[in-house]
């Protein structure tokens, strides 16, 4: 069936095609059939992984507490999913506004701004739903197969959550645009989206720090909402949880609310979005204010370090992505700490986290500086060797990592000097090895691809993860003063040796690949 050109459905189809192609590009030149096979295999694998979880949930549900035993988990799921979708929508709206893309073309066409925004927002919602669906739907399917069909309620609940979250995210991003203006929205929205997206993780950290009676009250409220007065007063907040639990009335209400919020946001903000898009075109960027003139730097190293620092610091998207990496790594430390560690040692709990963060940050920053270079051809015309430039770039990324990890390492050192020494040495090693891998195996791309960089080179991703785990294990065994530290260290050395550059010609500058 041919869709009517210019219609809402036609625009949705166009945006979906663009979205699919962006996703398919992650698979490189792979043929469509093979992509479909890979996705099919991944879905099957996710269902297999979900099977034991479903059995565990089923056993709980069939227990004496019945479905009430699951309330806390369902509530946690909803609290995780909703902010995730809202954050995705805020980010997508901001990127649509500032990334421009085809907005000029669309707004120059005789199609109403509401239709344009409605189509785009719907595809944003579909993207956000898809990103969560890959994790949740296998669980729902397997549970339904295991004799609990009410789990299929996750389908409509997720659809409603996608519409609700996308509408809210869109509204929040545009409200920010009105509040702080086009100049600062890009930065503020990105930071806000990061915080919203990470709110679940941050919330869990906050929860762990609460006094024991308060934690008990929250857990009671989660387990049985009607027993806690605060929860019943805010019954609406439990709507997504009840919907996901399979209550027919709640499913309908949540769906209705999702559609209303989504429709209201797109209808109300259509013209605003168009106006914001026009205002954001060529808007001066925050930080572009008049600054005091200062003398030019004297050395090549200083200029290159300043350039790398500025490019990362001034890119809110990049900053937020790296911040997210850190936020998502923090719970490991808290979990290790709360579970007492094998020896109850603070050093043992936090050192592996510090080591892993060091590896992740060094990997990301090294990739940004080396593979994400904006003007590789320009650098190739400069009268300096590639080695000189790469050395300075590595120096440039070392400073922010040292600054960021300095405080936690100091804290560990105060608690346990030996652990502090181990944290220093092993985070140095982890950072250096992650940077080396990115130096030896460069994959030129846009800076914004930083978190997707491993989709370009899955091998580099695997090596980076392997090395960071090995360094963390090595740090723990070193803290325990065990000779077994030699095993992970030997494995690290062997992995690095395997990945060393084989010949200079292999790393020769190739503008065609760098462009």
């Amino acid at each position, binding site marked *: 069936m041919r869709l009517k050109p210019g219609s809402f459905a036609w625009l949705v189809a166009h945006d979906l095609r663009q979205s699919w192609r962006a996703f398919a590009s992650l698979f490189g030149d792979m043929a469509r059939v093979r992509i479909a096979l890979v996705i099919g295999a991944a879905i099957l694998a996710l269902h297999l992984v979900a099977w034991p979880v479903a059995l565990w949930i089923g056993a709980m549900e069939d227990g004496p507490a019945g479905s009430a035993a699951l309330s806390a988990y369902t509530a946690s799921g909803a609290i995780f999913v909703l902010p995730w979708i809202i954050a995705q929508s805020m980010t997508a709206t901001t990127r649509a506004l500032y990334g421009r893309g085809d907005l000029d073309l669309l707004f120059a066409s005789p199609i109403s701004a509401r239709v344009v925004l409605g189509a785009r927002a719907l595809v944003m919602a579909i993207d956000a739903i898809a990103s969560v669906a890959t994790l949740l739907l296998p669980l729902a399917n397997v549970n339904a197969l295991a004799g609990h069909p009410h789990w299929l309620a996750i389908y409509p609940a997720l659809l409603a959550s996608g519409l609700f979250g996308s509408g809210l995210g869109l509204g929040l991003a545009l409200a920010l645009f009105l509040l702080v203006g086009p100049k600062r929205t890009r930065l503020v929205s990105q930071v806000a989206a990061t915080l919203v997206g990470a709110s679940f993780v941050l919330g869990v950290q906050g929860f762990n720090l609460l006094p024991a009676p308060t934690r008990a009250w929250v857990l009671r409220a989660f387990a049985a909402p009607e027993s806690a007065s605060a929860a019943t007063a805010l019954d609406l907040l439990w709507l997504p949880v009840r919907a996901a639990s399979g209550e027919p009335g709640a499913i309908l209400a949540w769906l209705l609310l999702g559609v209303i919020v989504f429709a209201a946001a797109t209808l109300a903000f259509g013209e605003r979005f168009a106006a914001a898009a026009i205002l954001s075109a*060529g*808007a*001066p*960027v925050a*930080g*572009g*204010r*008049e*600054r005091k*003139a200062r*003398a*030019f*730097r*004297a*050395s*090549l190293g*200083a*200029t*290159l370090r*300043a*350039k790398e620092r*500025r*490019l990362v610091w*001034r*890119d809110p998207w990049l900053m937020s992505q790296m911040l997210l990496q850190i936020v998502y790594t923090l719970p490991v430390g808290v979990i290790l700490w709360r579970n007492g560690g094998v020896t109850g040692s603070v050093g043992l709990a936090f050192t592996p986290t510090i080591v892993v963060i060091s590896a992740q940050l060094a990997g990301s920053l090294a990739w940004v500086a080396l593979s994400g270079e*904006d*003007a590789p*051809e*320009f*650098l*190739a*015309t*400069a*009268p*300096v*060797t590639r080695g000189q430039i790469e050395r300075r770039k590595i120096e440039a990324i070392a400073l922010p990592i040292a600054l960021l990890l300095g405080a936690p390492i100091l804290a560990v050192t105060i608690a346990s000097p030996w652990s502090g020494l181990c944290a220093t040495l092993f985070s140095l090693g982890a950072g250096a090895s992650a940077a080396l891998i990115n130096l030896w195996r460069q994959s030129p791309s846009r800076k914004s691809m930083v978190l997707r960089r491993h989709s370009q080179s899955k091998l580099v991703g695997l090596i980076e993860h392997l090395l960071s785990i090995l360094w963390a294990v090595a740090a723990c065994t070193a803290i325990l003063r065990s000779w077994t530290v030699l095993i992970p260290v030997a494995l690290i050395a062997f992995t690095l040796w395997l990945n060393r550059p084989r010949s200079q010609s292999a790393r020769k500058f190739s*503008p065609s690949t760098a462009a």
Partner: protein
Amino acid sequence: MRCSETAANPPALVLSALRKSFAKPAVDGLDLTVRAGEFYALLGPNGAGKTTTLRMVAGLLPADSGDIHVFGIDVRRQAIAAKRIVAWLPDEPMLYDKLDPLEYLEFVAGLWGVEPKRAQRLADELLETLGLWAHRRERCEGFSRGMKQKVALAGALVHEPRLLMLDEPLTGLDAAAARLVKDLLAERVRRGATIILTTHILEVAERLADRIGIIQRGRLIAQGTLAELRVAGGAHEASLEDLFLNLTGQDARAA
């Protein structure tokens, strides 16, 4: 006044039997000499090999065979020494969106090892001359194409190259900016720099260039002053456009 070409005063650029092939030959045994202090316009139809040639001189593409000498320096053997005195300005400006023009010029000067105080003075002069002074602390991401082109040109000039190669430098510039750039380039040549420029705007070549070279299918098919080209073309009153179309065999298609 032209310098005589001796071992002490070598030509700015000498290409000998230069070859580069991709799927098919892009540069096919090109011989070309550009004198020191000359404004040289390199013309040719699309795909003639102009940009490929200049990218090889800039050290961005390895040649399959042949020799490239810049002021007597063998580019293929002493790439760094050659790059020290060469600037390359492609048609797409090579900029960093998150840097402002002053920071960009500081970065370029740092790469080329220009003494900081001198670099700062040159940067200020260039920003003034190119009408970028008021925008010197704004990030390049908000600039128009023409402004970006001017920032890139300032970057190419801030290290005072002896040989400046420009690929379509007037693309995206308005009439006033184009005039400004043409004047700036002419001034650089008067002060002793050598400029090689590719352009499809033949009027620019006609007005600015001391000599014009026309390449087609990777080979030089004609070279000389406009008067010499007219004599070679047997058309004493012809415009450069007529001569170009005639020499490249495109006149029939253009008609």
